[in-house]
C-alpha cells in the first residue's frame, strides 16, 4: 500500500490526471469530498494536504510519495528524493518591487523584503552579500510592497497580472518552479516493488 500526498489548490487537478494515467484513481473526488484520506483501489490511497505540508509528510514517512512545487521542496529543506519533474504548475519565484523604485542600487541599509519564502529569500540575498530585514507573511504579499511595509517582495509569479495591477515589476528571477514528485528515501528502497512500476508510469 502506497500513501500519496496530494496537494490542495491549483496542482491538484493536473496531479490527479497524471496519477489516473498511471492507473491510480481516487474513489471519491478530492476537490469536493470532506474525507482527508481517500482510497484508490487496494494498492494506494491519497492524503489531501496544503502543498506546503507535502514535503514534511513525505520526509517523515506519513506519506510515501507526493506532489508539490519545487518552491515548497526547497523552502522546506526536507530530505527527499525528487525523481520526476512533472512540468505542470509552471511559475517563477521572483523579487518584485514598486515600479520606478531602485531596489538593486539601494545598498546603504538593509533591504526590507516581505515573503512567504524566508529560507529561499535569505539564501538568495545571502549569496549576493545583501543584508535583508525579512518580514515573514502568511498571505497577500504584494500588499507589503504596495503599502510601504517593505521595499520589495519575494513571491510566486504565474502570469504577472497581479503584480502589474498593483504597480509592481519583477526585479529578478530567483527560481523556476514546476511540480515535482517527491519520494521518501526509505520507502523508495523498502517498497521498491510497488514504487518503481508507479514511477515508471508517472515519468
Amino acid at each position, binding site marked *: 500500500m502506497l500513501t500519496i500526498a496530494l496537494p490542495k489548490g491549483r496542482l491538484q487537478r493536473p496531479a490527479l490526471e497524471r496519477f489516473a494515467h498511471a492507473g491510480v484513481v481516487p474513489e471519491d473526488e478530492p476537490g469536493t469530498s470532506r474525507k482527508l484520506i481517500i482510497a484508490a483501489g487496494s494498492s494506494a490511497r491519497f492524503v489531501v494536504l496544503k502543498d506546503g505540508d507535502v514535503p514534511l509528510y513525505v520526509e517523515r514517512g506519513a506519506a510515501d510519495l507526493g506532489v508539490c512545487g519545487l518552491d515548497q521542496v526547497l523552502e522546506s529543506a526536507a530530505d527527499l*528524493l525528487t525523481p520526476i519533474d512533472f512540468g505542470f504548475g509552471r511559475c517563477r519565484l521572483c523579487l518584485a518591487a514598486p515600479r520606478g523604485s531602485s531596489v538593486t542600487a539601494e545598498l546603504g541599509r538593509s533591504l526590507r523584503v516581505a515573503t512567504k519564502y524566508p529560507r529561499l529569500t535569505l539564501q538568495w540575498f545571502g549569496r549576493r552579500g545583501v543584508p535583508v530585514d525579512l518580514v515573514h507573511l502568511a498571505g497577500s504579499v504584494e500588499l507589503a510592497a504596495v503599502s510601504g511595509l517593505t521595499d520589495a517582495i519575494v513571491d510566486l509569479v504565474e502570469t504577472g497580472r497581479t503584480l502589474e495591477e498593483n504597480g509592481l515589476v519583477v526585479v529578478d528571477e530567483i527560481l523556476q518552479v514546476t511540480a515535482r514528485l517527491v519520494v521518501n528515501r*526509505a520507502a523508495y*528502497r523498502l517498497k521498491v516493488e510497488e514504487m518503481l512500476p508507479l514511477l515508471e508510469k508517472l515519468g
Partner: protein
Amino acid sequence: MQPATPLPGTQDLLFEAARRLRRCEATLCARFEAKGYAEVIPPAIEAADVFGPEAFRALDRSGRLIALRADFTAQVARIAATRLSGMSPLRLYYRGSIVRRVAPDSGPVHERLQAGCELVGAAGAEADAEILALAAASLHALGIRGRISLGSTGYFSALAAAAGAGGRLAAALNDAIDRKDLPTLRSLCEREVTPGKARDALLLLAQPPRPQTEAGELLSRAEALAPTEDALKALQRISAALGAARSLGAELEVDLGEVRGLGYYTGIVFNLYATGAPRPVGGGGRYDTLLGRFGDPRPAVGFSLDLDALVPLAC
C-alpha cells in the same frame, strides 16, 4: 529560571524506554562479541580537529579548541592509529551518544545514540563483506527487517574527476544524484559536461537500485563506460564485495547513486533502511585514509547504527 525541559534534539529516557535501549544494546554487543569484536569506550570530549565542523565546540581554560564527541569512527581511528598501532586486523566496537550540530557551524545541537563496529587493517573485499554481513546480522538480532543499499563514493569521485567537474559542478551533480533527480542530472550533464564516457556513466547514477541478483548487469554496463582506471577499480570493489557477501541475498541491493556518506569515506558506502523508519537507520563504508591523519596509514571499514531509530522498532 527557564522551564527545565531537555533541549530540542535531546531527550530523557525513563523506565521502559531506558530498559528497551539497554536490552537492544546488550543484544548488539553480544552479537559483536560473538564475531570477535572488542569494546572500546572513547572519551566524551576530544581535541576539536578529530571531528569535522558538525562538532559542538568550546575553548578549554588554556584556550585549546575542544569538541564533544560528534563521531565514534574518528575516535576509534585515533585509538587504532596510536595506542593500537601496528596490530592488524583490529575488530573494535562502541556504543554511546554523539552530539552534532544539525547543519555545520550553525543550527541546533542534537544528541544521537549509536552502536557500531570498525574493522581496521584489512583492505580486501572479504573485510567489506564481513562488515556488510555484520550490519545485516545486527538488524536481524533486533528482529528488524531491512535492506542494505550499497554504492561507492570512490566511483562518483572518479567520474567527476574524469569529467573535469570540480567544486560547484561536482556538488550540484552529487546533489542531483543523491535526490535521484534525473531531469536535473540530465540538464547539468548536457549543459556543463563534455560528451563522452564519463558523462554517460554519470547519467547512469540516478538509476533505481538493483537487487543483488540483478546487479551484475548494471555493474557490467557501468564497467563498459568506466572512463578511468580509478572508476573501474571502484566498480570492481563493489562487485568483489557483492561476491563475498552472497549470503545476504535480497537484503542487499546495489545503488550506484548511493553517494552520501561521511567526508572520509574512500570506497564502498552503504546505508541501512528498516521497515517502519522513514530515514536510514545506519550506514557505513570504507575509509582508507582516515587513520593516516593520526600517523598510522592503514585501511579500515565499519558501520554505525542509529539506536534512536532502531530501538522503537526492535522486538
